């Protein structure tokens, strides 16, 4: 009976999805539990900070610059209709600090650093390096996973802050230098409207949450990947898809909690 079979298929998929969520949670807690090594031997974390944080710098800075420039251009076109071009700074800064900075930086981070993490750990598993470590009584979660996790968690807020800061200058470049919005009102209205705790710290908090989620998804997918070439490629794809969706959904939830339209 094909109908029964498709029902069974759906059930099987749901059960295995829930199973994987449980597994990922246990993996996350294990990573936290074995985090001691990544701070005691901090050079392990520094090495990962280099490959996740520093190597993502260029894409983050260039993307931030262009996003800010587009915001400046589009914002000007819209605000001009209401004769309030002087509010361009507010629009660029709030848009970047609250939303685009954390979200776009996290999406770029997921595809730049997250996919690399998954592929690296998946290949380590496929070439039985992880098994070899276990044979030598080295805990692979403490030695491989935890430093990468902390590197991701530390670098994500820094990258998002850089994205926003560069974006504001991109908006400044297009709005003030190219179009000719008044420089004084650009900065002063921005400063009057952007609140440090409400806007900037909430943005940092958002990017911290995104960093944690993206890194856990990437590491778990790599650790859980079938040890074949196909399995690793599938896991890499799943990392990018799952973490992008997770970022966007979490962003909605966090925004609803943080800014309740007051």
């Amino acid at each position, binding site marked *: 009976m094909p109908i029964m079979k498709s029902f069974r298929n759906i059930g099987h998929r749901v059960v295995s999805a829930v199973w994987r969520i449980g597994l990922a949670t246990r993996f996350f807690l294990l990573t936290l539990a074995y985090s001691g090594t990544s701070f005691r031997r901090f050079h392990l974390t520094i090495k990962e900070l280099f490959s996740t944080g*520093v190597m993502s710098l260029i894409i983050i800075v260039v993307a931030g610059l262009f996003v800010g420039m587009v915001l400046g251009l589009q914002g000007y076109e819209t605000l001009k209709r209401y004769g309030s071009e002087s509010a361009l700074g507010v629009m660029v800064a709030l848009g970047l600090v609250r939303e685009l900075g954390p979200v776009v930086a996290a999406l770029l981070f997921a595809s730049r650093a997250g996919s690399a993490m998954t592929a690296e750990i998946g290949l380590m598993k496929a070439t039985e390096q992880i098994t070899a470590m276990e044979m030598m009584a080295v805990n692979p979660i403490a030695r491989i996973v935890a430093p990468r996790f902390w590197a991701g968690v530390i670098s994500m807020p820094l990258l998002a802050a850089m994205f926003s800061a560069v974006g504001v200058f991109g908006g400044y470049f297009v709005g003030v230098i190219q179009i000719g919005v008044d420089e004084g009102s650009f900065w002063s209205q921005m400063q009057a409207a952007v609140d440090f705790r409400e806007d900037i710290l909430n943005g940092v908090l958002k990017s911290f949450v995104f960093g944690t989620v993206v890194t856990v998804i990437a590491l778990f997918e790599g650790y859980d990947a079938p040890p074949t070439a196909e399995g690793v490629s599938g896991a890499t794809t799943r990392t990018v898809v799952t973490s992008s969706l997770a970022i966007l959904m979490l962003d909605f939830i966090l925004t609803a909690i943080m800014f309740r339209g007051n």
Partner: protein
Amino acid sequence: MERTTLDLWVGIFVVGGIAALVMLAMKVGNLGTYNVSEAYQVHAYFSNIGGLKPKASIKSAGVLVGRVTDISLDMERYEARVTMSLDKRYQFPKDTAAKILTSGLLGEQYIGFDVGGDEAMLKNGDEVKMTQSAVVLEDLIGKFIYSKAEGSTN
């Protein structure tokens, strides 16, 4: 421990990130412009606050001197009680009047201080006695129509 170029790059990365945060806080945000630590509180009663919101600015002669910290309805007088936090550097006479004004035609509302001539100054916890409520557009139109109708009968 051995120093490597890797450490240098990570250092540059961390310093850059923190610098970006500081820049956001100082240049983009309001942390560098207005400090509420040195402030004193006064309150005032308005019969109608219009669209005044917490954190609205308080200006005297156009200069920002404080912020609205709290708005509530007083259940004895049925008037809006507005608590204001003023910068310690600025002292105002006791007979200062507070008006709710609007910046521009569609701009946000703020409180303007008209300075009086009293010798005694407002202190922490004092009340600003003289107030002028927000102008409500509907009331204004109503008055205008009323006066027009009155004028046409003569």
